[in-house]
């Protein structure tokens, strides 16, 4: 079974600074997706960034980027120029790929609570 580990229960960052959230995973599959989701106090799960395992290039979305190390099974999230609105729970998630179907669920890590200090 696949597992996702987030070893940092809580992190804090000064506004405008950079922070990196860690994630490791375990799988025997070679083709899969990795995600970071953000959950603010509103409870809504918001997709932050997505990485396909077959792509060597690290995904970026504005201030958010990942460091994907497939051999090490590591998938960290870097948030640059942190803003107060970035404060939330961040979940790393894994999804096995089966063709292009949407038929496999997400497996989540335990989450990292990020605080942003003004």
């Amino acid at each position, binding site marked *: 079974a696949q597992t996702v580990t987030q070893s940092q229960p809580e992190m804090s960052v000064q506004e405008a600074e950079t922070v990196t959230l860690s994630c490791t995973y375990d799988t025997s599959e070679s083709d899969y997706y990795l995600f970071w989701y953000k959950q603010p106090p509103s409870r809504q799960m918001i997709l932050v960034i997505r990485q396909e395992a077959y792509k060597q290039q690290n995904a970026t979305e504005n201030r958010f980027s990942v460091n994907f190390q497939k051999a090490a099974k590591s998938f960290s999230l870097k948030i640059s120029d942190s803003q107060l609105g970035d404060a939330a729970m961040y979940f790393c998630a894994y999804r096995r790929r089966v063709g*292009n179907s*949407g038929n496999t669920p*997400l497996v989540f890590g335990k989450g990292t609570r990020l605080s942003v200090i003004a």
Partner: protein
Amino acid sequence: SAVISQKPSRDICQRGTSLTIQCQVDSQVTMMFWYRQQPGQSLTLIATANQGSEATYESGFVIDKFPISRPNLTFSTLTVSNMSPEDSSIYLCSVAGRLSGNTIYFGEGSWLTVV
């Protein structure tokens, strides 16, 4: 992306009662996934619902406690039966994007408190 509406958003329930959560999607999707998020915890998959067949439940979750219906490609319900305080959680419906099947999108969640 997919737009997912969940009802109710929040409810306070009496011990021993049952509550049905509805999930409506704005496009046809093959699979719908139901997750539970207990207070301060991560998301745990309850079951996967495919239209026209019985839902597939994860270890620790049973149909008698969490019956699921999936009458068509845009709608599903999850019932939490004979509730106890341990069932107090956020329940989330999720689907894979129709045009982007590699990403899963979530409804707003249903926050149930059992007293």
